[in-house]
């Protein structure tokens, strides 16, 4: 008896009929096994005292001493826990708050533009930063915000400040800078989703509003925004799920020893301990903690959305 016999003849027939669809699923299946589920084995590392031995990964992996939640306790009790969590949460919430609204505004504004060439240029230009690597993007920001950079020169020209503001050196500016950089990089890309959603709105709605006497602003308020709501809710769920996933590159590249108290987030922290100091088990525990919180957040927001009778993700 193999598994095939457990499937009813009708189902068997359907599977055979749809064999090419199943075939198309194979790459995605392999991908998730290899890159999503496979590495989860490594989570075991968070619960042992892993000491790397050259050339003997598996024996040192499974031979490591089981220590339970020791690494988690160490992380929660550590001096830096509060600081790291604060930086991660505040910076992330700020990034979402700004980075979430701007694409909607861009999409709605672009939708009002009647001059197609201008619309296309704006769309392309705002889309481009998405393809720039953070190494370059971070350097652009560091240069712009340096003591004799463009921003300071402008501020002085406008008489808003006499001495250069040390943006990159003073930690209190860091969250804003990262939020701005995140927004700038992703706004064009994210606005495409909204533009697509707007394009699918039945034009009759706008015509009815015009006959009713609603201007552009009223049309946006009564038609565009409500029609975008399902898209907004779904993207918000996804964004909140990523609340602790601040991203690593921008913090690593924009952060420095002077603004460390503001720029050190879960990802950079895990990186520093795991790779730079060789505390693999500790870094794994920090990473796992992040994933669990993210998972709970997604579930929470999704059920909230469902209770609000809005669109939920699942």
């Amino acid at each position, binding site marked *: 008896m193999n598994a095939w016999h457990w499937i009813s003849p009708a189902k068997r027939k359907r599977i055979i009929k749809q064999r090419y669809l199943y075939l198309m699923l194979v790459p995605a299946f392999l991908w998730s096994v290899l890159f999503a589920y496979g590495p989860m084995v490594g989570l075991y590392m968070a619960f042992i005292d892993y000491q790397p031995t050259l050339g003997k990964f598996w024996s040192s992996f499974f031979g490591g001493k089981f220590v339970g939640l020791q690494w988690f306790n160490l992380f929660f009790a550590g001096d830096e826990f509060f600081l790291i969590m604060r930086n991660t949460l505040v910076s992330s919430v700020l990034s979402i708050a700004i980075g979430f609204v701007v694409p909607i505004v861009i999409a709605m504004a672009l939708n009002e533009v009647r001059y197609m060439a201008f619309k296309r240029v704006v769309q392309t230009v705002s889309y481009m930063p998405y393809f720039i690597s953070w190494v370059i993007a971070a350097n652009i920001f560091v240069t712009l915000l340096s003591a004799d950079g463009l921003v300071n020169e402008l501020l002085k020209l406008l008489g808003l400040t006499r001495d250069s503001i040390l943006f990159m050196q003073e930690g209190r500016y860091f969250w804003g800078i990262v939020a701005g950089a995140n927004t700038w990089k992703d706004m064009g890309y994210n606005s495409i989703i909204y533009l697509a959603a707007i394009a699918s709105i039945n034009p009759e709605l706008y*015509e*009815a509003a*015009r*006959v009713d006497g609603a201007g552009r602003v009223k049309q946006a308020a*009564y038609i565009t925004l409500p*029609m975008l709501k399902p898209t907004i809710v779904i993207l918000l769920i996804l964004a909140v799920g990523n609340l602790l996933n601040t991203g690593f590159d921008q913090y690593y590249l924009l952060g420095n020893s002077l603004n460390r108290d503001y720029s050190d987030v879960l990802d950079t922290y895990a990186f520093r301990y795991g790779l730079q100091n060789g505390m693999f088990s500790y870094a794994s525990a920090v990473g796992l903690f992040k994933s669990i919180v993210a998972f709970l957040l997604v579930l929470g927001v999704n059920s909230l959305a469902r209770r609000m009778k809005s669109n939920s993700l699942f």
Partner: protein
Amino acid sequence: MGSITFNHVYKRYKGEARPAVNDFHLSIEEGEFLVLVGPSGCGKSTTLRMLAGLEEISEGDLYIDDKYVNYLSPKDRDIAMVFQNYALYPNLSVYENIALGLKLRKTAKHDIELRVNRVARILEISHLLGRKPNQLSGGQKQRVALGRAIAREPQVFLMDEPLSNLDAKLRAQTRAEIIKLQSELKRTTVYVTHDQVEAMTMGTRIVVMKDGIIQQVAPPRELYDQPANLFVAGFIGSPQMNFIQGSVTREDGRFYFVNKRIKLPVPEHHYPGFNRDRNGISFIMGVRPEHALLKADTGREEEEGWVRCEVEMTEITGADSYVYVRLGEQTVIVRTDPDKLHRKDDKLLVSFAMNKVHFFEEQSGDSVSLKGDAQ
């Protein structure tokens, strides 16, 4: 109040070879229920949308109440429009949907309340006022859309296929309600549909369009009895009018419609149309199914006016039955008593009520009878 004049109006879309609306020239009287009808793509919606101000007029003048409105925005035209897909504001309640147009026009709050409630009572949607559009059925949504139009108390109602998303029963019911509402409100209404039954039952006057061009403007009865051309004759009426190809010959001062199988006397009131030189021209004789008659073939010599035919199939609609008979290469539909049963391949005789038939020039499609009348 509420009269409309189209003065040689054209609509040309960019990149389209022929105009979507071609020389639309028509006056609509105050209080009229005018229906624009025609196949899909014939320019009905475009015409209505130009009237609404949602589409620019390429050429010609448009007047509402003798006021030149070519460049007036929709909200300033004193019109209200009902759309095919209801077009309700998705996040506003039914009450707010009906009220918004009034609110935007700065109507006093208690006045809005009064009007919305009155309209809701007329349309029997009072119990739905608190709901959102996505909690309504299609029929209810369309009532709300009607309510939104009525509450504004405009001079002109415009409706673009408002019933085509409803199921058959609801469509008939809502159709009756719109007719009743219009006769009570006595407001000029321009109604677009592709459905000739809807057009015939609703309009006090009907405009038949094809390829952007007006084919005929007439009250329903006249459209049915005196179609101006082949297109109108074929479009109005279900089942379709039968078209029989032939030519006209003259013998002893009398005209006959002839082809390989038939020779039928042309009634005298059509003579003026044939008196001009019509030699060698092909004609089409149009006969409605109710103007044809069947009887059993006795097998004797052909009597005058009766033509041999055989039954192809029978369609029973309940009150009537339609027999499809073959007459050479031609199929002719005959309305008969449903009690008489005809089987496939039955041999029968068919005749036509010649004083009711229509003649058209095959080339131009124009009615010969009307041309004759004009002479």
